[in-house]
């Protein structure tokens, strides 16, 4: 499982996987995909939502806190970014993103406070407050929308040191770079002491505390970082996908979608965030296409969307019962079976990594 590190703490397979993904993302995709549709409707929203799902993973998959309100933090990040761009026009976009994330993180700490008192379904309800409060606040105080009354605010163009990034492919590159960096940081944290402390709190909080972990610190840290990732994701989502800012885009349905991404993708894995986001995003597209192909438009769109809901519900229940580790784990298992035909889950004999 843990192989000998070849670069910093990364094993050979980490490095190869990473290299392949980077080549795909920055060398293959930009030169082979020419249709805007792929960038604007598939790749950009996928990466944005996967980033938000990583945030959800921190708090739910790693720290074990059942939180529901990712979209609220996304809204905080989106509107923070809009206001920074509006009021400090010279601010390079990456810095605006950073500050948007930090502002969202502050909300994360605030709405993470109930986790110190309640857990499970009660915490889920308590964290819903973030969802409603943040949207309410944006709607209530005109300042956040720069007193716009039209209802839909256009997002500013992305400028990085005077260079505009406005075409779908350029925006994809911005998103891909941000998501790559934040994913690496997420992997480092979750594999290191930060993630271990969170998982300890998740699996047995009393024991974690007895080992010297402050539950308050660990939980609020998870909420803060979760909200940071969601905030950055929300800003990217608004500026590169929606290209507008409207609170309704960040409604509770989006929070649920992100929750489902994490459950289906696999709790407590970073890969799972990407797999889950892809599934949730593509599933309706695939179903629609299939529906149209099979029934040649004779079937009503509402029926297709009803089918979608039912299948989603069923899948979530199935995964929760049979494979709580999600699709990422299923994939791992399949890969392992194909690779070495060793029974899954059995410890490999005495393979000790040499860290040093």
């Amino acid at each position, binding site marked *: *499982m*843990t192989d000998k590190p070849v670069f*910093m*703490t990364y094993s050979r397979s980490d490095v190869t996987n990473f290299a392949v993904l980077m080549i795909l993302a920055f060398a293959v995709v930009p030169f082979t995909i020419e249709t805007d549709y792929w960038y604007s409707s598939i790749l950009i929203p996928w990466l944005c939502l996967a980033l938000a799902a990583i945030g959800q993973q921190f708090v739910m998959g790693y720290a074990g806190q059942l939180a529901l309100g990712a979209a609220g933090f996304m809204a905080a990040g989106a509107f923070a970014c809009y206001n920074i761009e509006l009021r400090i026009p010279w601010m390079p976009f990456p810095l605006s993103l950073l500050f948007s994330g930090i502002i969202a993180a502050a909300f994360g700490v605030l709405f993470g406070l109930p986790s110190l008192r309640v857990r499970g379904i009660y915490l889920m309800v308590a964290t819903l407050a973030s969802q409603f409060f943040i949207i309410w606040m944006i709607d209530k105080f005109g300042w956040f929308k720069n007193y716009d009354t039209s209802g839909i605010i256009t997002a500013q163009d992305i400028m990085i040191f005077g260079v505009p990034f406005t075409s779908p492919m350029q925006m994809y590159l911005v998103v891909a770079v941000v998501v790559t960096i934040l994913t690496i*940081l*997420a992997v*480092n*944290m979750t594999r*290191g*002491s*930060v993630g*271990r*402390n969170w*998982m*300890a709190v*998740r*699996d*047995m909080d*009393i*024991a*974690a*505390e*007895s*080992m*010297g*972990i*402050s*539950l308050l610190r660990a939980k609020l*840290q998870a909420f803060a*970082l979760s909200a940071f990732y969601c905030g950055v994701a929300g800003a990217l989502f608004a500026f590169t996908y929606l290209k507008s800012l409207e609170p309704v885009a960040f409604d509770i349905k989006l929070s649920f979608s992100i929750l489902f991404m994490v459950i289906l993708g696999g709790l*407590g894995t970073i890969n799972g965030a990407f797999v889950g986001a892809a599934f949730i995003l593509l599933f309706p597209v695939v179903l629609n296409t299939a529906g149209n192909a099979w029934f040649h438009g004779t079937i009503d769109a509402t029926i297709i969307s009803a089918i979608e809901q039912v299948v989603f519900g069923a899948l979530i229940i199935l995964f929760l019962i049979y494979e709580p580790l999600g699709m990422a784990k299923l994939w791992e298992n399949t890969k392992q079976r194909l690779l070495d035909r060793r029974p899954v*889950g059995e*410890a*490999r*004999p*005495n*393979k*000790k990594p040499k*860290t*040093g």
Partner: protein
Amino acid sequence: MTQVRNFPIGGPLLEVQHISLRFGGVKAITDTSFNVLEHEIRAIIGPNGAGKSSLLNCINGIYKPQEGKIVFKGEVLDKISPNIIAQKGISRTFQNLALFKRMSVIDNILVGRKLHMDCNFLQVAFQTPRARQEEEENRERCEELVEFLEITDIRDTPVGKLPYGLQKKVELGRALATEADILLLDEPMAGMNVEEKREMCRFILKVNDELGTTMVLIEHDMGVVMDISDNVVVLDYGKIIADGPPEEVRTNQDVIDAYLGVAHD
């Protein structure tokens, strides 16, 4: 037990002073006082429900006794949470296994190193040289422990999948990893066979001898208690009925009545 020890028994390290603990109407502990001496192995015995686990929970800050105080290294541990008490140098295991089930053996033990790892999340996220060094050094310590406990072959297995006896061993490993001054072990050998018990005793004695770690252990097996402990406290219905060296406690009539007589089977 008679040969010269690397760490001869010293003065009081932990003082339990007039502790009383109630759960509603249930008196779990009543006005209990005793000292744990530096470098000793102290056993706590008593019938089920006597309040032994509750006592450890008070020492480690999980329960807050209504009366009395606990003094550790001359400092009163009053109304502070378990994580702060861990910082002061008290670690423990639990009666009903409290492991991190979905984490591997090595990761469980690494959590025990928490207080030796103080890089913040940014250092970890950016894998600064300091963070990498810290991780490496602590991993090495854990690898040594895994070897010492002879669980190398299961180091990557999620602990939830291990049999009970091995889980107990991992939990001891996690407590040892803290390198605390005092370990509170709540029935570390419960449910083990003679062979496994002997092994556990060996680990406990070795750590006590080599590192001078003070041990407080709850144990039902009188053979084990007589073998490894320097002093024994006997609890019954939340009260101390005897406190002294094992030979002395064994012949105490109150103890025979309350505990040995009942538990002898």
